[in-house]
């Protein structure tokens, strides 16, 4: 008896979101690399993260790779675009953090505009992860970036009104972040919908746990979101998914500690890059549409993987 391929295609699909000409979503299969189940019109994208201020206490492999540009967000973004061929740039406005440098909203918004003007791939702008401040910052950023469509976030249940309302005004896309929970993700999409933000403008950020530090929760929540969208046809969960991988992966002790301090762990550069790339391959399999990465070598590894499916 011949083996019959058990293809699984759904009648529902992920909503297609167009961020300034780069589209994500649109597939009716569980993961962007399940091309054996059906067409994936828009391959998953690799975004590279740029931070608006020189990062402190960065792991050595990142300094080695990006140390020449990491004090200048525009140069950094250009390097990611031109040299590493990032599909998108994700600018993290960490310097706005009230518990850190606490730069005012209009000042960090200027950086966003400068990066936007310099690059020709789409821009994602992420805040400092303080809900209140991000509400303020994302308003200023959208004002400063008017004229081009950007993806802004993370909007959460506290600041979604400010971020969402501004996104409507400028026609921007919103990354809606909820803490690893299917119902909360749905709830936030409903709230944004009530504001008038259409599903074509929303991307879910389910909160990423890094390898060894909560990835298993993120993995399963992403699969459940996709199953709810495709198998059950839940309209409010049909958004594409963005994963903030670099930030979580490089926080791990295993991605930071040197081989001289922990000889049994082996070479730090190899280990750190794989910490990020392996977090990424797991979440890609679980359904991620935008992988936000930091190290050029993990970008290369994931590009190799994606090229097998889309070339």
């Amino acid at each position: 008896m011949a083996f019959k391929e058990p293809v699984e295609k759904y009648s529902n699909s992920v909503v297609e979101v167009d961020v300034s000409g780069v589209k994500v979503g649109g597939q009716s299969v569980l993961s962007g690399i399940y091309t054996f189940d059906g067409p994936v019109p828009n391959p998953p994208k690799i975004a590279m993260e740029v931070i608006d201020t020189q990062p402190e206490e960065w792991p050595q492999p990142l300094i080695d790779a990006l140390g020449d540009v990491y004090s200048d967000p525009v140069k950094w973004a250009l390097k990611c675009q031109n040299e590493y061929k990032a599909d998108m740039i994700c600018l993290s406005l960490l310097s706005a953090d009230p518990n850190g440098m606490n730069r005012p909203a209009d000042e960090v918004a200027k950086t966003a505009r400068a990066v936007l003007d310099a690059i020709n791939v789409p821009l994602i702008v992420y805040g400092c992860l303080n809900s209140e401040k991000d509400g303020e910052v994302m308003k200023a950023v959208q004002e400063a970036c008017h004229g081009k469509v950007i993806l802004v976030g993370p909007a959460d249940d506290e600041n979604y009104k400010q971020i969402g309302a501004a996104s409507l005004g400028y026609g921007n896309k919103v990354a809606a972040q909820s803490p690893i929970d299917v119902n909360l993700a749905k709830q936030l999409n409903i709230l944004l919908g009530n504001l008038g933000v259409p599903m074509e403008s929303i991307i879910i950020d389910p909160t990423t746990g890094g390898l060894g530090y909560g990835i298993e929760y993120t993995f399963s929540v992403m699969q459940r979101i996709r199953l709810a969208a495709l198998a059950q046809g839940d309209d409010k969960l049909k958004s594409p998914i963005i994963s903030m991988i670099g930030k979580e992966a490089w926080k791990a002790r295993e991605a930071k500690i040197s081989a001289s301090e922990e000889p049994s762990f082996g070479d730090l550069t190899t280990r750190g890059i794989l910490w990020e790339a392996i977090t990424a391959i797991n979440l890609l399999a679980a359904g991620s549409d935008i992988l936000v990465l930091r190290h050029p070598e993990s970008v290369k590894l994931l590009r190799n993987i994606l090229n097998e499916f889309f070339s």
Partner: protein
Amino acid sequence: MGLTGIQIYKLLPQTNCKDCGEPTCLAFAMKLAAGKADISLCPYVSEESKAKLSEATAPPIREFTIGTGDGMVKVGGETVMFRHEKTFFNPTPIAVMVKDSESDDAISAKLSKISSICFERVGKKLCVDMVFAKNEADGAKFMALLDKVAATNKPFVIASDNLETLKQAAEKYKDKKPMLYAATLANADAIAEIAKATGLSVVAKGNGLDEVSQVTSKLLAAGVKDIAIDSTPKNFKDALKDNVFARRASIKQKVKEVGFPTFNVISDYAKDGMMEAVIASGLIAQYAGIVVISEPDPAKILPITVSRMNVFTDPQRPMVVEQGIYPINNPDENSPVIITVNFALTYFIVSAEIEASRVPCWLMIMDTEGLSVLTAWSAGKFVADAMAIYVKKTDITQKVKHRKIIIPGYVAQLSGEFQEELGEGWEVQIGPREAADLPKFLKMWKL
């Protein structure tokens, strides 16, 4: 497949003798149907019924072991497509390839690394699990290689295209319970003979799942049951497809011919060691039964095995440690007191940093139902009043003279209220956010 309680009842003696611990045969049958009892509990069931039952209740993916003793691995036995439905059971063993065509020195170096790479994380050991011994040179060289491999006590795979060599090796090492690689359409009958004579498990290899099914059909017909399947993909894309399809076909459609753990020789197609590591982790998350890579490099094995550990943790039960006061580095009445949650990962990270600091400490672990610091705080479990109640309930005041307690930096906001709840004389101190900064903090700590 999947008998109902009534169907099972018909196979039982129907005497209601109660020896199985159930009041009636029917009650026992219901438990069997729900997978909550084992047929061996009924001493009176006929052999014939037993065979029928064990076939009907066998997991859709064959489960078996490779190797012997401490290092023995169990593969297959999975029952679901998604880990949130239940859990994945048997962590994918990671095998490293060693060839007889490599120099003696290279082989020895590789094997000694394979034996020594082992990490401890959250109370579990993460190691290289198996050796894939490949025959490329002559028979004598291969036997010499197998001697060295067997001495590592890791389970191993005997891989040879030469039937005579394979047979000879299987005979010689059968007590170590290695696995044979591989049965193909051309040699399936002969391999089945060897497998049956030695009782060893076999990899069925073919070009795609269709050919693999033909090979497993032959093996099954010959009475071989412990099988893994290798569809020899040319790249990750095909490997992913075959792993997903084999899992779906066996779990959802009960296709017996592919109801086996998949065998993934990633080193055959991955471009380099980095790609091997990424692909291995991707496939482990996507149903791989066994993976074979080429290098025993700790910087790669660590992330691969941590990834595997995450995929195979039970989503219903976070790993926890017991509530209580843990002495670290022989503390006394003047040592610092630290409080945190009982999530196993948090405990593992924090206690490791304290140990590394060499500063004697009392680590108070509070039951937060296995939630991390911020998650437990958000869930109202690691909050001032609950923490104060816990601290007062313990005998920490008999262990130390002072009344100072250090809290995680991420919950700095609860320090005032916590101090108030603890009452007169207590001082709540805010520690750093990341455990990595604890050693520096503790070394500076003064009474």
